[in-house]
């Protein structure tokens, strides 16, 4: 299988729970996320390595990465 067919992860963001602290954006090692107003958003899904740091350090149960 080539890179083109590489399965992308699914990043679930709950805007009702995100308080906009930007911890996930700041600590993402591959710059996947960005702040849009007061809520996090995915900027570059392909860069995601599924390391889960965003989920682990999110204080608000607002973001999870699924394979």
């Amino acid at each position, binding site marked *: 299988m080539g890179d083109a067919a590489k399965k992308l992860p699914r990043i679930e963001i709950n805007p*009702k729970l995100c308080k906009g*602290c*930007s911890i996930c954006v700041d*600590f993402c090692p591959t710059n996947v996320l960005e702040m849009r107003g007061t809520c996090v958003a995915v900027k570059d899904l392909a860069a995601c390595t599924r390391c*889960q740091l965003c*989920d682990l350090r*999110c*204080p*608000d149960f607002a973001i999870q990465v699924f*394979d």
Partner: protein
Amino acid sequence: MSVPAEKKEKISVPFDYNKYLRPGKLPHIWCPGCGHGIVLKAMLRAIDKLGIDKDNVCVVSGIGCSSRTPGYVDFNTLHTLHGRALSFATGIKLARPDMKVIVVTGDGDALAIGGNHFIHTCRRNIDITALVFTNAIYGMTGGQYSPTTPLESIATTSRYGNIEPPFDTCEMAKAAGATFVARGTAYHTLELEKTIYEALMHKGTSVVDIIDACPTYFGRMNKYKSATHMMEAMEKDGTVSVKQVDKLPPEKVAGKMLRGVLHKIDRPEYCEQYALLVQEKAQAKSK
């Protein structure tokens, strides 16, 4: 068994927190960037590793920001009075030694108003795990200095800088007799999960001092730019793992707090002693 190279890619299986969260209680009351939510998640993952029935877990807290934790989690939960969580928990544990009793408390709750209960719980070595959420401030009441506020830090009651030296929670727990003492941070979240798990597995009083950030009060008053800045400066750069400390030059260790399991010994646990030495003797005497 060898794993094919492509499978070594991290496979993301996010933790299902809903298994332990009470439905409809989120969002929690904590401010944006507050570390308590990160610690709560590590706690839930650690409890999950125990593989015990939720009916047999009791989470007790006192008063303060961190003490709101029990309201969110689907166990037997008790939100008590300021400083008294460990005493309520002692009653529950003694009445029901089969239950896993966890106390969630803040630095002010555990060490100031509840300081006496803290040291005596450690002394008894009753099988309770105390998770001390140390944000070095009274958040719920608006940012007053606490027993762990560093010297010269600004708080709403130390506008000219704090002149009271802070407690070292771990040193105090150890000196008072706790048989498992550890420190973690919200930044080192996987390490924290493991530390809490070890504390929960330990028989006796276990204390985990957890450094986490209060960006709203401590952060703003002490010129931290953001929650992230606090986590990097205080939790990442302000601590050093007990496993690395011997390998580092002194200048890299100076002024930093030790992280990891700092003290672990075996000593008879209170409820077991009660059953063995008190109840058995009393019953033999009455025969």
